[in-house]
């Protein structure tokens, strides 16, 4: 055996190994396999003559109505689109955008209000600078409770999808834009709040501890120290989450009035698949434009 081979063998034997990771990989594989084999997804044939006929009918029906069964004509297709846009699609696209914007800003405000109380280096008797004398057990316990409760609220907020929040809130508020905006805002406040709290916990100490050493109280540390230090990252997170808000804003409309989703649901109920696909395309276009705007905004923030 050559020296090189011996070294390779030794390195191989000394490679970092974790039983937990190996077990995780096996478990993940097992769950995926069991889902495919036992989940009943392959019980029905994925393709047969019935489905083929269904698909053919569907493809015929997504052609704009005035052009169905005729040769394609750009002028008429444009007129068909223009009528629908003026009638409701334009307004619905704007409303979808507005829902996403209102929701992410509300989520941002909620996250900023909640996050400090979930950050273990801020929510404690002696934030960022140990007190010279020991802190009482009671005070320390109280602050730990604040962190635990805030983190639990954030988990509850983000574990429930926006769609479920919207469904529940619609029952309580009735059909206005509020339930949709609130639903997206609550879910995203949970996500942003957690990300922001983790970010605050990773903030570098000297600036903040010197602020406290100079006698700044909690609010002053938060406003003069934590906010400027974390604004950039926070904005990056905000724009990232806004991209998902734009996607969800379309979908939530399927539960009530206002956004594009309402017209998707409406067209589906009337079997007007041409209008359904057009409304979906408007949503997709909004998503693509939103992603572009977000990418530009994040680049601007990153450079500043």
């Amino acid at each position, binding site marked *: 055996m050559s020296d090189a081979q011996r070294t390779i063998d030794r390195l191989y034997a000394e490679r970092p190994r974790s039983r937990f990771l190996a077990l995780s990989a096996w478990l993940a594989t097992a769950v995926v396999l069991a889902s495919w084999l036992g989940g009943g997804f392959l019980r029905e044939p994925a393709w047969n003559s019935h489905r083929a006929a269904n698909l053919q009918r569907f493809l015929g029906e997504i052609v704009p109505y005035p052009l169905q069964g005729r040769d394609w004509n750009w002028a008429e297709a444009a007129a068909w689109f223009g009528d629908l846009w003026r009638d409701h699609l334009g307004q619905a696209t704007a409303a979808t955008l507005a829902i996403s914007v209102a929701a992410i800003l509300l989520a941002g405000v909620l996250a900023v209000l909640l996050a400090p109380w979930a950050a273990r280096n801020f929510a404690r008797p002696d934030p960022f600078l140990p007190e010279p004398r020991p802190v009482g057990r009671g005070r320390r316990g109280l602050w730990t409770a604040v962190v635990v409760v805030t983190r639990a609220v954030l988990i509850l907020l983000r574990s429930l999808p926006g769609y479920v929040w919207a469904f529940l809130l619609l029952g309580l508020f009735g059909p206005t834009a509020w339930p949709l905006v609130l639903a997206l805002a609550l879910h995203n406040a949970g996500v942003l709040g957690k990300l922001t709290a983790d970010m605050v916990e990773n903030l570098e100490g000297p600036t903040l501890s010197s602020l406290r050493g100079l006698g700044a109280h909690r609010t002053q540390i938060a406003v003069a120290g934590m906010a400027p230090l974390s604004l950039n990252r926070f904005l990056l997170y905000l724009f990232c989450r806004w991209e998902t808000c734009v996607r969800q804003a379309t979908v939530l409309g399927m539960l009530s009035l206002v956004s594009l989703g309402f017209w998707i649901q409406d067209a589906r109920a009337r079997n007007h698949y041409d209008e359904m696909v057009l409304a979906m395309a408007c949503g997709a276009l909004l998503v693509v434009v939103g992603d572009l705007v977000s990418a530009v905004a994040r680049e601007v923030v990153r450079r*500043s």
Partner: protein
Amino acid sequence: MMAPERSRPMSAKAIVLLLLVAAGVWSAVALDLDPRRLWPGREGWLLAAGFFGHAFRPALTHEGVDIPAGATPLLLGALAAAVRTVAFAAAAMLPSLVVGLLLGFGGSTAWWAADRDRGQAGRVSAGVRFRATFGPGVSTVCRLAAALLRSVHELLWAVLFLAAFGITPLAAVIAIALPYAGTLAKVFAELIDEAPRPAAGALREAGAGPVAVFLFGLLPRAMPDMTAYAIYRFECALRAAAVLGFFGFPTLGYHIAASFENLYYGEVWTYLYVLVALVVAVEWWSVQVRRRLVA
């Protein structure tokens, strides 16, 4: 003494913040968001109190008066719905990971950028020339395909498939898998491109082919972040699978909708807590895996 000049140009970040505020005002006006409407009427308060009051006492057995004798106990039913939710999400992860990895690698610049620089040096092999010529085009196509896939939300894919093929569990799985493949591809491409490249460069100099360079030079560096993101996507897939229940699939959302419409708020909270438990378990797992991968 003269005051220091204050005519600094506004920073780009200040403009972004101002635009955000303006967008917020526009959205509130466009949607007619009246804060007073947030204050529900008497009826709304009763409903809200009834619903949120049950958060502290979720149901352990079926609510309602006439429960059929052979009915599955509530908790057992919730567990079965949770298992089906996991099955939908896990099944969707397989195709989305495969497609996401292919599109993600294709969309990265890592497999052709070095060849393009070398291509100008004169005599090179056919493979290098091929990658230098077609690399940029292929990766643009991959990125576009990923963007298209993820521009349509999973629920809308489900609605499309429902209309085109009829309702099947497989259609639901594919509906989740398509946009997730697009999202995974985008993030994987970014992570592969951000991974340190010296190891890959050394392998390439030693004559390794593009597949070997990717597998042994690039992938190991990007792997921890890619794994963490894939687990996060699984967590999202769980939520998506639960929501598909609202469209008639037998996941948690189906039971949430049914119980809510029957005004069995205790049952709703039971199902909500089961969903929360699933998400929290996956999040805990993700933290554990990440800690071990990064260390």
